[in-house]
């Protein structure tokens, strides 16, 4: 009943929209196209240019486009199946739904691992991208050399994070305004960049270009690493899509728009990033955008990209902190909104000051997160589709967590946590994102798929054997 204290006489629909209660079918207003637009707007962000540029390090445009499509379709499907399908059916908040798999405290643990760290990392990377855009822009105007690791970039990155804090502290209205303007404008920017690239090179010329810095002589291995980077990009939507899907009318409208919106839009942005990086010889979009069309184009593009980063940062910061209050304890909810936001920005600020090279190897951070999301996807699919046969107990999800069937052991489901650890270990055993070392199986199966399968298998088998009794998830008997 913790949320009842804050509800008072306010609207229950508002409380349901925030995730405190399940949304009723009549309250869910998004149809197919509304959800498609919403998740396209989320996916068309500056990180797409970064990911596309990273792909260009490993493979040329032909293999890169294939890797973008293959990685993203698998990643988005794995992220959306265990999150959007139950959210579309019951209208339940994603981390409330996760209580059925991990227990109430286990769900909090997953939130911290899956949302807090990811968001903090992206805030730092996008802050640095803002800084480099400003540095590139001022260098273009003054005719001086850009200094990606200079103090100007650090100061601008700190400014970007603080600006994001200020925008989000003002509330969702300001973010909505930025979204309405920035997302369509980014589509125009992508089209403009494509036009400039194709005015200098034919499509065949582009396809025949080589990778910028392939790490291995084995082309197949480089290709699979590019696929894995994209799988990581696709599956890293796991923390966000479920809570958007619950705003849609039913399972179908919660699931299929991800394939059009997130997969289609992200793939388009990444292809632009890939072609730009390979054609201009630099994986950093803040460098190649400065070169692609001369002074005026460079200044406009970099200025725009800088502020588009703030929009992306505001979106993820807002979503994460709303979620944090949702799953957090009373002590966290008691912290003032502005203060909680600022506390969330401390780690990104430290990263931009002391670890500015994170930007150049951001894909390593991205791929590390896939070790977690692949396992979470496997557990979610095994739990919801196979063990629970797509039926959840709403009383248990929203009732007293100390007495209900999802209480497990002190609020943690040791089986799901074991499966999560197994999935992450399998991932790292198959592919080490830090060193890029891999087991032979990686070339055939990637690392995310074995990790997802292993976590799902362990969760299924251990649940069948050990999860008995009323406090152990109340799984249906076969």
């Amino acid at each position, binding site marked *: 009943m913790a949320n009842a204290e804050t509800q008072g006489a306010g609207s229950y629909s508002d409380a349901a929209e925030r995730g405190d209660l399940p949304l009723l079918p009549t309250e869910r207003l998004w149809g197919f196209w509304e959800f498609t637009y919403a998740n396209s707007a989320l996916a068309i962000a500056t990180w797409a240019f970064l990911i596309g540029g990273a792909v260009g390090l490993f493979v040329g445009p*032909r293999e890169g486009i294939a890797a973008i499509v293959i990685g993203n379709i698998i990643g988005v499907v794995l992220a959306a199946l265990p999150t959007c399908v139950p959210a579309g059916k019951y209208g339940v908040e994603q981390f409330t739904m996760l209580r059925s798999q991990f227990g109430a405290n286990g769900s909090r643990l997953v939130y911290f691992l899956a949302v807090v760290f990811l968001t903090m990392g992206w805030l730092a990377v996008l802050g640095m991208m803002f800084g480099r855009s400003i540095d590139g822009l001022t260098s273009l105007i003054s005719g001086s050399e850009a200094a990606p690791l200079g103090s100007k970039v650090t100061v601008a990155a700190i400014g970007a994070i603080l600006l994001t804090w200020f925008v989000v502290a003002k509330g969702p209205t300001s973010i909505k305004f930025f979204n309405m303007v920035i997302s369509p404008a980014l589509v125009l920017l992508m089209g403009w960049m494509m036009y400039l690239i194709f005015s200098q090179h034919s499509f065949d010329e582009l396809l025949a270009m080589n990778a910028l810095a392939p790490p291995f002589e084995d082309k197949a291995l480089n290709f699979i690493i590019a696929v894995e980077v994209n799988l990581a990009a696709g599956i890293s939507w796991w923390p966000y899509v479920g809570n958007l899907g619950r705003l849609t009318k039913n399972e179908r409208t919660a699931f299929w728009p991800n394939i059009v919106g997130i997969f289609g839009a992200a793939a388009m942005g990444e292809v632009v990033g890939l072609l730009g990086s390979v054609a201009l010889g630099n994986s950093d979009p803040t460098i190649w955008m400065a070169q692609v069309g001369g002074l005026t184009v460079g200044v406009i593009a970099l200025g725009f990209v800088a502020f588009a980063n703030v929009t992306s940062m505001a979106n993820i910061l807002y979503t994460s902190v709303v979620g944090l209050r949702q799953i957090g304890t009373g002590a966290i909810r008691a912290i003032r909104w502005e203060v909680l936001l600022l506390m969330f920005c401390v780690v990104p600020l430290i990263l931009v000051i002391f670890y500015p090279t994170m930007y150049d190897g951001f894909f390593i951070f991205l791929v590390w997160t896939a070790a977690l999301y692949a396992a979470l996807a496997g557990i979610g699919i095994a739990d919801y589709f196979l063990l629970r046969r797509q039926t959840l107990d709403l009383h248990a999800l929203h009732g007293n967590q100390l007495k209900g069937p999802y209480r497990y052991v002190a609020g943690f489901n040791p089986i799901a946590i074991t499966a999560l650890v197994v999935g992450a270990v399998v991932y790292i055993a198959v592919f080490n994102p830090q060193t890029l070392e891999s087991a032979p199986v990686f070339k055939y199966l990637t690392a995310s798929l074995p990790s997802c399968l292993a976590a799902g298998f362990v969760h299924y088998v251990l649940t069948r054997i050990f999860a008995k009794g009323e406090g152990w998830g109340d799984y249906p008997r076969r």
Partner: protein
Amino acid sequence: MSETDKTWAQELRRRIDVYDTIEAKDGWRGSMGAVDYWGLLALTVALVAGFWLWGV
């Protein structure tokens, strides 16, 4: 239990009852069915196989 808690519990109960009624009548609209899952599998396999052959 305070009055606020009671009304909150009633509202939760009301919402869960709506879903229980749908479940009892098997009245889920727009459910993902076999056609959706087979279609999704076919689309994924087609994209993966098609781009693999084209790109590698």
